[in-house]
C-alpha cells in the first residue's frame, strides 16, 4: 500500500515530523473508536484500516535514513503497529519479531554501529541498542515500550532466558544479579509518558502490568503441573493481586482452588472457587474443580450437583468475548491444553463424567437418564451444538454405549438396554471381520480372528443379562454362548492394533479379557442353575475358575454347586483353598476394569460371602468330626 504524505502541501509551517505524528495520533484514535464499536464487521474493517495506515506510515518513516529526531516517533509507530497486529491476529508471529528487529537496527543506524548483521541475535541487538540509548536519552521511553513488546513476544514463545537478560539490562542491573523473572518484572519501571508524546494504543506501564500477571500465572501453572504446590500458590497469589481481566481472574482463582485442594485444604479451596464463580460468565472450570473438592470431601450429593450445574453451564452457548486492541493477558497465556488441570472439557465429556459418577455412586436412576441424554446429544444430528466424543480422555464411543446399557439394566430397563446394544452392533456391523457365523455362510473361508473387538463380546454379555432380566433364559444363554465363542477366539497376548478402533488398545488388557470370560461363564452357569441343569452349570463354573484364578466369585458359585450336587470331597478341597485365598485376594483386588464390566460383575456377585463361608464351615466340618 502506498502511503502519501502531503509533503509541503496545503498546510504551511508544518514540518513532516508533525504531520507524521498527527497521522499516528489519528490512527490510534481510529483504532480506539473501532474498539468501542458493537458491529463486528465494521469494527474489524476499521481496525484493519488503521493497521494498514500504520503500516504505510511506518514505510514512509523507514524510507528515510534514520535520525535521532524522528526515531521516538518511529519506534512508537512500530509499537502501535505491533500491538494492533498481534491483537487482531490474537497471536504473535514471526513478522512481529522482524518489525521489532528492524526498529532496533534503525536505532543502531544512527549510531553508525550497524556492523555485520548476521552474528548478533536479538539478544546482542538489544544489548547494543540499550548501550547506545545511554547516549540518546530521548529514545528511552519508546525503547522501553518496544522492550515490553519484545518481552511479551518472548513470554508467549517461552524464551525465558532471553527475557531474563533483557530485563536485567533494562533494569541496569549487573549480570549475575537476580534471575527471578517475577522480581525483575516488578522492579522494571518504564519511564512515564510525557503529555506531548505521540499517542500509543497501550503504554509501557500497562504492558508491564500485563506481563507481570501473565508471567505469574504461567509460572504458577507450571509449578502446579510439576507439583511444587507452595510455590504455585504464591505465584497464583501474585497473579491475582495484579490488575487482571475477569476471565483471567476466574482462571487464577480456579487454579488457586486446585492448588489448595491438592495441598489438602478443601475448605479454603471452596472459598476461592466461590469467588471464581462470582467472577464472571465462565464458570466451567470452577464448577468442575468444585466437584473434585466435594469428591475429596466425600460429599456425593454436592459433587453431583456441581456436575449437574456444570452440564447446564456448558449447555449455554458461549458468548464470544470481544478482544481489545491491546496486548492482553490472555494473549500471553499458553494455548488451552486438554491435559491441563484447569481444562473442563466439553459438554459431552462432562455429561459422561456425571453419568458415570452416578453409576459408580449407585444412583442408577439418574445414571440411566444421564446416559440416555448423553447418547442423544452425541447421536442426534439435529442438535445444533456438536460435541466431540470424550475420546481424548481415554474412553471411546463403544464404551459409552456399553456403560449406558449397563446402567439401563441396573435400573431394570432391560428392553431399552437391548435397544442400545442393537444400535451399537448395527452401527459397527460393517467393521466386524468376516467369519463363518452359523446364520451366514461367508464365501471366504476364515479361521481365526485375533482382533475381534472386546466390546462386541461385552455387548453380547449385556444383551444376555437383559434377557435374564426379561425372563427369557433361552435367549440369554444363547447370547452368553455367543459371547464366549467370540471371547475364546481372542488370544490374550496379541496386542496388535485391531482394525479401525483407535481406542481398542485401552480396552484390550489381558485382565479385562479374563474377567470378561469369567463373567460370561458365571452368567451362563447361573442361568443353568436357574433352569436346574446343575451339571452344565458345574462345567461353566469349573471353567471360569480355571480361566480367572483371581476371581473369587467363580469359586463361590462352584462351591455352592458342588454342595448342591453333594460332591462333598471336592467341595471341602475347594473350600480350604478358598479360605487360604481370601486373605490374599483382599490385598490385590484393585484392578481398574471398565465401568460396564464392574457393573456387570456386581450382578453375578454372590450375596454375603462371609455368612456363606461360615455356613460351609459348619456344614463341611461336621462329617469330618464323625
Amino acid at each position, binding site marked *: 500500500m502506498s502511503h502519501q504524505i502531503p509533503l509541503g502541501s496545503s498546510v504551511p509551517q508544518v514540518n513532516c515530523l508533525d504531520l507524521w505524528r498527527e497521522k499516528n495520533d489519528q490512527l490510534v484514535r481510529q483504532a480506539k473508536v473501532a474498539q468501542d464499536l458493537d458491529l463486528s464487521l465494521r469494527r474489524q474493517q476499521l481496525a484493519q484500516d488503521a493497521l494498514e495506515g500504520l503500516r504505510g506510515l511506518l514505510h514512509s518513516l523507514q524510507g528515510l535514513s534514520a535520525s535521532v529526531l524522528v526515531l521516538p516517533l518511529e519506534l512508537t509507530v512500530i509499537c502501535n503497529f505491533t500491538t494492533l497486529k498481534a491483537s487482531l*491476529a490474537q497471536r504473535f508471529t514471526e513478522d512481529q519479531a522482524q518489525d521489532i528487529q528492524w526498529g532496533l537496527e534503525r536505532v543502531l543506524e544512527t549510531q553508525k554501529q550497524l556492523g555485520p548483521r548476521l552474528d548478533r541475535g536479538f539478544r546482542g541487538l538489544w544489548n547494543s541498542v540499550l548501550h547506545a540509548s545511554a547516549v540518546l536519552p530521548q529514545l528511552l521511553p519508546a525503547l522501553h515500550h518496544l522492550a515490553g513488546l519484545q518481552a511479551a513476544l518472548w513470554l508467549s514463545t517461552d524464551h525465558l532466558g532471553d527475557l531474563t537478560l533483557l530485563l536485567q539490562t533494562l533494569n541496569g542491573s549487573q549480570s549475575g544479579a537476580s534471575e527471578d523473572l517475577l522480581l525483575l518484572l516488578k522492579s522494571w519501571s518504564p519511564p512515564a509518558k510525557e503529555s506531548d508524546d505521540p499517542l500509543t494504543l497501550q503504554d509501557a506501564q500497562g504492558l508491564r502490568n500485563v506481563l507481570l500477571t501473565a508471567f505469574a500465572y504461567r509460572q504458577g501453572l507450571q509449578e502446579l503441573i510439576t507439583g511444587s504446590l507452595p510455590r504455585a500458590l504464591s505465584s497464583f497469589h501474585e497473579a491475582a493481586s495484579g490488575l487482571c481481566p475477569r476471565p483471567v481472574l476466574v482462571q487464577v482463582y480456579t487454579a488457586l482452588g486446585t492448588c489448595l485442594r491438592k495441598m489438602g485444604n478443601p475448605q479454603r479451596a471452596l472459598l476461592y472457587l466461590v469467588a471464581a464463580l462470582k467472577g464472571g460468565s465462565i464458570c466451567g472450570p470452577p464448577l468442575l474443580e468444585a466437584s473434585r473438592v466435594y469428591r475429596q470431601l466425600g460429599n456425593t450429593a454436592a459433587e453431583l450437583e456441581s456436575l449437574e450445574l456444570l452440564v447446564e453451564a456448558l449447555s449455554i452457548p458461549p458468548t464470544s468475548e470481544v478482544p481489545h486492541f491491546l496486548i492482553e493477558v490472555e494473549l500471553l497465556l499458553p494455548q*488451552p491444553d*486438554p491435559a491441563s488441570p484447569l481444562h473442563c472439557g466439553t459438554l459431552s465429556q462432562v455429561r459422561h463424567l456425571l453419568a458415570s459418577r452416578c453409576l459408580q455412586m449407585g444412583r442408577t436412576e439418574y445414571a440411566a437418564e444421564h446416559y440416555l441424554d448423553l447418547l442423544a446429544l452425541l447421536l442426534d444430528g439435529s442438535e445444533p451444538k456438536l460435541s*466431540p*466424543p470424550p475420546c481424548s480422555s481415554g474412553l471411546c464411543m463403544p464404551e459409552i454405549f456399553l456403560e449406558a446399557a449397563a446402567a439401563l439394566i441396573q435400573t431394570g430397563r432391560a428392553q431399552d438396554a437391548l435397544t442400545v446394544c442393537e444400535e451399537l452392533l448395527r452401527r*459397527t456391523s460393517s467393521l466386524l*471381520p468376516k*467369519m463363518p457365523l452359523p446364520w451366514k455362510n461367508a464365501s471366504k473361508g476364515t479361521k481365526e480372528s485375533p482382533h475381534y473387538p472386546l466390546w462386541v463380546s461385552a455387548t453380547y454379555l449385556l444383551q444376555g443379562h437383559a434377557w435374564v432380566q426379561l425372563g427369557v433364559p433361552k435367549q440369554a444363554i444363547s447370547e452368553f454362548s455367543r459371547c464366549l465363542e467370540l471371547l475364546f477366539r481372542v488370544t490374550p497376548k496379541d496386542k496388535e492394533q485391531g*482394525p479401525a478402533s483407535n481406542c481398542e488398545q485401552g480396552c484390550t488388557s489381558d485382565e479385562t479379557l479374563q474377567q470378561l470370560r469369567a463373567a460370561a461363564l458365571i452368567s451362563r452357569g447361573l442361568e443353568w442353575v436357574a433352569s436346574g441343569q446343575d451339571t452344565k452349570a458345574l462345567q461353566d463354573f469349573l471353567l471360569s475358575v480355571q480361566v480367572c484364578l483371581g476371581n473369587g466369585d467363580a469359586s463361590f458359585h462352584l462351591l455352592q454347586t458342588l454342595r448342591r450336587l453333594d460332591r462333598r470331597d471336592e467341595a471341602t478341597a475347594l473350600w480350604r483353598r478358598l479360605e487360604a485365598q481370601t486373605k490374599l485376594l483382599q490385598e490385590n483386588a484393585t484392578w481398574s476394569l471398565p465401568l460396564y464390566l464392574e457393573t456387570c460383575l456386581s450382578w453375578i456377585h454372590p450375596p454375603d460371602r462371609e455368612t456363606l463361608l461360615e455356613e460351609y464351615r459348619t456344614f463341611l466340618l461336621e462329617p469330618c468330626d464323625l
Partner: protein
Amino acid sequence: MAGLVRRVHYLAGFSGPAAGPAAGRPRVLRPGAEIFLSTGRELVHVYDPEGRQLTAVYRLPAQVWHLEVLALRRALLVLCARRGVYCLSLDPARRSVSPSDGDHEDGELLSPVIPVDPDTCVLADATLCAFTVLDDKLITLAQGPAQWKVQLFECPCPGQDPRAKGPIGEVELSTYTPPEGSPGKPRAPHFLPVLCCVSPPGSRALHSHLQGPRGFMLEGALFGLLFGVDACLLESPVILCGLPDGQFCCVILKTLVTSRLAPGDPKALVKILHHLEEPVIFIGALRTEPVAEDLEDAHSDCLVALGHRGRTLAIKASWDEAGNLVPELREYCLPGPLLCAACGGDGRVYHSTPSSLCVVDLARGGAPWDAEQPDGPAGLPSLLCPASLNVCSAVALAVSPRVSEGHAELLALSAKGRLMSCSLDLGSKTPGPTRVTAANSGRKIKDLLCGIGTVSERVSSLKKAVDQRNRALTCLNEAMNLSCALLSSREGPRPISCTVTTAWCRQELQDVLTATCLLENSSSFTLARGWALCLQVLPSSPAAHLDSAGSAVTYTVPVDQLGPGGRREVTLLLGPGEDGVLSLPLTVSCALFLSLREVVGGALAPSDSFKDSSLDGCPPDVLPEQGGICLPLSEHTVDMLQGLRFPGLAAPPAQAPGDPVDTFLESCRRPGGEPAGPESLRAKYLPPSVAAIRVSAELLRAALGDSGSGVSLCCTTLQWLLAENATVHVVRAQALSSVEGLAPDGTGLRLDVREVAVTDLCPAGPIPAVEVQVESPSLANMCRAHHAVVGRMQRMVMEQAARDSSPPDLRMQYLHQIQANHETLLREVQALRDRLCTEDEASSCATAQRLLQVYQQLRSPSLLLL
C-alpha cells in the same frame, strides 16, 4: 478401450480462464437442469442446455475460486478470491436485474450481467481458500498465518445475515510453510486446497438434497476402517482435505467444537490419511465392485485422491486371510500434470491433462487381462492404463447424474472457454450397423463437424508444442556450436572474448573503482536468449586478509541477443565497499552461462496456455534447478598498479573552468588534506616503507621491444607497468619516469624508475639495470604495489625465457651468497611466524617488529632479475 464411441457437442463459448499464476479455478456444476459454470474469472454463468442459452450471468467482485449450488434453497454459494463467500439467490424474482449493465465479453451471448451486491457476502474472510456444503452446514478451509484452519458454520440462506453467528466448530490442521512473499500480504496460493465430504451409509445426509455434488456416501467397512469406530457410531460425516503440500487428512465433523468452548486438539481430531507429496487437486469416491442384487443403493467403496503431477491414491477396504478388515492402499502414477478430475460411475475416474482428457477404470484397470480375476470382488488393479478421449485441455469436468448402463455424459469446459458435453459409450459392445435415416445422417454430420472442431483445437495446441520444441532444439544446437568453437580455440584469439579494464569514477560522493567488462562476439554465431554473462569477483587477497577470502561475488547479466560482431559492455563496481576497504588484488573471472531451464524448460512442460497458470515455478523433474552450460572466457587480475590514482597528473587546465564549489570540495578531499586514522599518523611520523626491484636493462629492452624511439627505458618501463591503468596516457605524454599516486585508501604511493648499474655481479663489468622503487607511507600498500610489480616482472621473465635469451656471465659465488642469505632469512621468518602463533600479546609485538625487519632485509639488497 477401443470401443469408446464418443460424441462431443459444443454447447456454448465463454471467455477463457484468466491466464497467469493468479488464475482462479474453473468449475462446472450440473445439479439439475441448469449448468453453473465459472471460468476462473469474476463471472458465474448459468446456462440452460435445453434452451441452449445463458439464463444469467453474475459478476462477482473478484476471481471465483469455488461455487456450490444449494438446489433446495435455490441459492448459489460462491467463493471469491480474498473476499469470502457470497450467497446468491437463483430466483429470478429476487435478482435485481439492471439491464443498463448489460456489457458482454468477447462476443458471447447477450445476457444481462448481474453485478453482485456486496451485501450478499455471507462470510467475509480474506483467508478462505475452499469451502463445501453438507446438509445445512458450511465447511470452510482458511489459510492462517501458520496453519490451515477448518471451520464449520451454519449454512446461510440468501437474504439472511449469518454474520452475527460465529463458527460452530473449528480445528487447525498441520503446520505448513507459508509461501515466499512479502511479509504481511499473503500471496495468492498457487494451488487451492480441495475439500470433500463423505458420509457413512446410514446417515441422514443421503436423503438430503442440499448435499453438494462433492459429497459421497462410503461403504460402511471403508468408512469405519478409515475414520474409526467412533465416527461409525456417531454416524458423523467426515471432511476430507487435500492440501497443496500433498497432505491428505480427514476431520470427523461431529467432533468439531468452537475453540472457545474447548480447544480442538488437532492430534485427536485430525487424522492424516496419506501424503501425496504433490498438490492434491481432486478427492472423490467411486464404486468399483458390482452392486449386489439385494442392495438398492450402491455406496462408494473406493476413495481416490489425485495429485497435480499425476500421483493417484486409491483406498479400498479388504479382508486378509484371517478375515480381518485391512485397508488396501495403492498409489498409481498417471501422466501429469493433471488439470482437473471427476469420478464417474462404474469405477471410472476422468482426468484432464493439457493434451488430453483421459479415463481410467479402477474396477478393471483398463487392462484386458485384469478382467479375468480369479475371485469375484478382488482388490484394486495393479496398473492403471489411461485411455484418451481425444478432448484436449479441459479445465473443469462434471459427470452428469443421468447415467444409464454403459453410458456416461461428461460436461467439460475447455481451456479456451468452450463448454462441451461428451457422451461416452463405455460398454465394449460396438454398435451394429444401423439403417441410415435422414434424421440419423443429419445427426451424424453434426457429430462429424463437432469432431472436426475438437480435432482442430487439439491440432493447434499440439502445433504450439512442436514449435516450442523446435525453438528449444535450435537454441540447443547453437549453444553446442558455440561451445565447440570456444573450447577448441585454446590458442590464438578466441571467437568470443571478454576484456576487463578498470577506471576510477565518482559515485555518490565517493570515488569508486569500476571494472568494465567488454564482451565481444567475433564468432559467426549469435548468443541468443538464455545466455548470461557471469562475472565473478574474487578477492585473491594476501595472507593478512585470509578471513575475507570466501567473499566472492558473482554477477549474472543476461546477454539478450548478441549477434556476430556485437559487443556488450558491463560495468561492475569493485569497491571500496560499505566498509571503505578495497582489498587488492582482485580477480575478475568471466564466463558464459546458458540456463537449460530457460531454454528447454518451456518445451518439456506440456505445451499450451496452461504452462503459465499451473506450471510456473514447478519445473519438470528432468531438469535440475541449476542445470546449464558454463563456458569460461577469461580471468583478469586487478592489482595495485591498476588501482592507483594520479590526481596530480590529471591535466589541471581541464578542471579550471569548473564550478568553484567543486574545486573547493575537491581540494578539501585532497590527499594533501588530513586523512584520519592510524595509517595517516604513521605516514606522518614514520619513514615511508621502501622496496625496490632491479631488472637488467637488456632483459627489459628485449621484452618491451624498445626500438630506440628516443624515449628512455625508464619511461617505457613505467608505461609498461601502468599499462592497464587509466592514466597511462598521461604518463606516456609527459614521458615520466617517476610518478606519485594515491592508493585506493588514499595514502600516497610513489613509483620511481631509474637506471642503475649493478657492479659486483658480473665479471665482465657492471650490468646496466633498471631499478623500480616503490615507496609508500603505508606498509600494506607498499607491499601490494611491490607484489604487483614483481608479478609483472615474473610474467615478463617467463615469456622471455621462452624466447631464450642467453644470460650474461655471472659471478656465481655472489649469487650463491645472496641465495644463502635469503635462505637463512626465510628460515628466520618461518621461525618468527611460528612463534607469533604461540606467544601472548606483549611478546608477540616484539616478534612482529622483528618479522618486519627481516622482511625489510629480505627485500634489500633488492631482487635482481637478469
